[in-house]
C-alpha cells in the first residue's frame, strides 16, 4: 500500500525544517455515527517517530485531541543534503505506516 504520509523538508545550512502530514481519521471515540447513532470507536495515531540517518530526531506522542490528518512541523540541527529521513507512526489499533525520504 502506498504510504499515506506526506513530507516536505527544507535545508538551511545544517538546520532542516520538516513539515509532515499524515492521513488518519483520528477518531476520539466520543463521536456518534450519524447513520447508526453508535459511538465510533477511538482510532488515533499514538506515536510518530522521525529518524534522520537512523538517529531519532523527534518522537511525537498523540492523544485523540490531535486533529484529523495530523500535521507536524519541526526543525533539527546537524542535517546534511542527502540524509535519509524515515518517518513512521503507529496507531492505537496497531496499524503502522512509514515513509523514507531524502533531504
Amino acid at each position, binding site marked *: 500500500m502506498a504510504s499515506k504520509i506526506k513530507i516536505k523538508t527544507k535545508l538551511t545550512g545544517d538546520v532542516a525544517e520538516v513539515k509532515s502530514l499524515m492521513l488518519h481519521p483520528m477518531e*476520539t471515540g*466520543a463521536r456518534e455515527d450519524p447513520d447508526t447513532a453508535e459511538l465510533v470507536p477511538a482510532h488515533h495515531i*499514538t506515536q510518530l517517530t522521525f529518524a534522520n540517518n537512523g538517529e531519532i530526531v523527534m*518522537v511525537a*506522542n498523540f492523544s*485523540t485531541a490531535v486533529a484529523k490528518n495530523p*500535521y*507536524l512541523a519541526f*526543525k533539527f540541527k546537524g542535517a546534511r543534503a542527502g540524509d535519509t529521513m524515515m518517518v513512521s507512526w503507529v496507531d492505537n489499533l496497531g496499524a503502522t505506516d512509514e515513509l523514507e525520504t531524502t533531504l
Partner: protein
Amino acid sequence: MQLGRRLILQGSLAFAALAALPRAAFAAAWPKKAFGSTAAQQAMIELLGKVQTTISHQIALRVPEIAENGAVVPVTISTTLENVESISIVVEKNPRPLAATFDMPPGTLPDISCRIKMGETSDVMAVVKTDAGIFSTSKKVKVTIGGCFG
C-alpha cells in the same frame, strides 16, 4: 567470607543494571496514563511528576484568539529556553486534557507546529521540560464550534 560478599555485591550490581534497562525502554513508550487522565493536573503528574510549573516568558505559544472550528486549532510552540527535553500541549477543558507531547532529542530545535482539537473555549498551556525544570505559558482560545463530538 570476603569472596561471598564480593559475589553478592557483583550480583546486586548486575541486578541494578538489569532493573535500569526496562526503564530506559519505557521512557519511549506512549504515556497511556497521562493521556487517559481526565483532569489537567492529573495528566501533568502522570507525565511530568508534578503540577507546579514556572511561568516563562521565554516560551512563545501561538494559537488563534478565536477558533471558529474546534476540530482544527493550529498550535505553534517555540522557546529560547535551553536543553529542552520535551514539549507538551495541555488543553484544560478537553475531556482528555493532554493533547500531545513531543520528546526532543538534543539537536532538535524547540520549535514545533501541529493542529489539535478543542471541545470548548479553554486555556491552552504549553509545557516545556528542560534540565532546569518545568516551564509553561498559557493562552485562552475561544471556540465557536467544538471539535470533540463531531
